[in-house]
């Protein structure tokens, strides 16, 4: 991780150790600091931010690395979540342990990624986007309707009382005392999600700077030249889909275990768009940017939620505009302003920034 950090921040070895130590302390203390400063609700927001960062990093492999526009990415999140929920809840009375269902969900999502990718990856650009959009909706509609004739998903009601994440007798679902310090459930989830997020970051960084990562970049830059250099473009694109889907499934399982309840509503087009926004807004292809985008897009709506209600009260003495609408309005405005101000994202990869300013490649 330290090496990655070194490259990530582009600092020398000695300072990297210092930065590593500092960052570790900040990350470890963060939930307690936020709990103390802003309240427990914000720690929950933090947990969601980590989940969305994982999702955004997964989508970044597909969109940022390989340059394939996927508008149905949330489907893989759903597959992971439902896999966890069905195998760890009273729905079927199955209660498999967390360390089995979580990898299983990721694997299943990976399988779905290949299933979607195999027939569609010959499509380009806009066409691929439309097909993936359709796929996302199909998965959601399936989940919504698989309650009859046999009840599998419990339809729109969703699945509740999902087993909390637990290893042996240690459950993350309730507060635990470790070394005399009390850790509330949201804090425990934070640490677990942090481990997985760091893992996803690590894998992303390693992939980017490898034979596979170069092949993805080559396809994104010029697919024809890439194929003429001996790259089996279909397989390499499929690999990007599969990897992205795996991360999505992983985040889905964690989400189900954390939330304890899931329903198809959580896996709509809006979520796909939101994750895509994190990637684009943060800076496609750059891990730091994507992480930043993930945090921002989880935190901004929460901030605007507070502002929309309380600020109106304070300024005007009464609620003039429905806070929920105002919140979305402010959120949309923030997105537009950011994209106008930094079209390549807040923290773009140097490569992407160059691409956006370059002209289109010529034909054969």
């Amino acid at each position, binding site marked *: 991780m330290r090496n990655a950090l070194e490259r990530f921040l582009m600092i020398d070895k000695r300072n990297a150790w210092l930065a590593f130590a500092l960052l570790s302390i900040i990350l470890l203390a963060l939930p307690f600091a936020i709990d103390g400063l802003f309240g427990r609700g914000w720690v929950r927001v933090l947990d969601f931010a980590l989940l969305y960062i994982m999702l955004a990093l997964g989508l970044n492999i597909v969109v940022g690395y390989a340059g394939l526009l996927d508008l149905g990415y949330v489907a893989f999140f759903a597959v992971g979540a439902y896999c966890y929920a069905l195998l760890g809840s009273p729905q079927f009375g199955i209660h498999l342990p967390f360390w089995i269902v979580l990898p299983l969900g990721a694997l299943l999502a990976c399988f779905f990624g290949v299933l979607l990718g195999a027939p569609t990856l010959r499509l380009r650009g806009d066409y691929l986007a439309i097909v993936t959009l359709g796929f996302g909706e199909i998965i959601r509609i399936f989940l919504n309707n698989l309650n009859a004739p046999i009840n599998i998903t419990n339809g729109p009601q969703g699945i509740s009382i999902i087993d909390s994440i637990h290893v042996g007798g240690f459950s993350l679902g309730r507060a635990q005392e470790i070394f005399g310090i009390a850790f509330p459930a949201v804090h425990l989830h934070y640490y677990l999600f942090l481990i997985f997020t760091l893992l996803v970051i690590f894998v992303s960084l390693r*992939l980017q700077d490898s034979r596979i990562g170069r092949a993805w970049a080559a396809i994104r*830059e*010029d697919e024809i*030249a890439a194929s003429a*250099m001996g790259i089996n473009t279909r397989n390499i694109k499929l690999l990007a889909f599969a990897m992205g889907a795996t991360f999505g499934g992983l985040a889905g399982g964690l989400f189900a275990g954390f939330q304890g309840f899931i329903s198809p509503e959580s896996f709509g087009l809006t979520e796909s768009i939101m994750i895509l926004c994190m990637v684009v807004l943060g800076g496609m292809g750059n891990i730091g940017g994507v992480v930043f985008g993930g945090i921002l897009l989880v935190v901004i709506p929460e901030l605007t939620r507070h502002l929309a209600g309380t600020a109106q009260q304070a300024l005007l003495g009464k609620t003039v505009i429905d806070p929920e609408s105002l919140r979305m309005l402010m959120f949309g405005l923030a997105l537009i302003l950011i994209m106008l101000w930094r079209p390549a994202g807040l923290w773009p990869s140097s490569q992407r920034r160059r691409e956006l300013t370059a002209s289109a490649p010529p034909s054969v």
Partner: protein
Amino acid sequence: MTSPAATLLKISGIEKRFGGLSALSNVSLHIQAGEIYGLIGPNGAGKTTLFNILTGLYQADGGKFLFSDIEYAGRSKPHILAKAGIARTFQNIRLFANMSILENVMVGCHHHTHTGIWGAVTRHKNARNEEQQITQRAAELLAYVGITRAHHMLAKNLSYGEQRRLEIARALATNPKLLALDEPAAGMNATETDSLKTLLQTIRSHGVTVLLIEHDVKLVMGLCDRIAVLDYGKKIAEGVPSEVRNNPAVIAAYLGG
């Protein structure tokens, strides 16, 4: 050990139509291992189209070709043909413009290396060795084609002539038997063209057969062992440079075109 006269590529009756236009009709030619073979002809004669068929970017409407003793119906995927040993450059340069010049060449090593997801993530011994080998090979190839720039420089920041040479390095990284060059001297000045000529001779001396499309008549005549002339999709002449130069059909095609 291949005998010097072994045929590396034998094209038989290749056809290609675009709607009503017959871009290639019944084109046949054979290229010996170790020679530099020129393909010339007026604009729109079908030279690039033939390249695109040989490298799998276009599908042939008829005919076949035999490369390195394997027969292809002109319908194989580009990566299959690249793996078989046909590498190319493009008339309109197609580099990975925003990747470094070293990475561009490293991508050429893709098909004869093996590191997958697992190796990329764990960086186990084999993966590290392989990465080190191709980094070194790419650096050698850059030097080989005469690019002395910093390795992290972006491909698009190279001069035009250097970009053409980078394309050659990238193609050589695939370990080809046949190197197909589509107008490599286009846009080069006289000095650059001269050093290109030397480079192509060196490449040939290292055992790579060269198929060359070129408009620069002086370069083609001075470099090629044999030449074929295309006009309106048909082969109108073939032979050693002196024969082709004096062929009345060729003179007519160029003056008439």
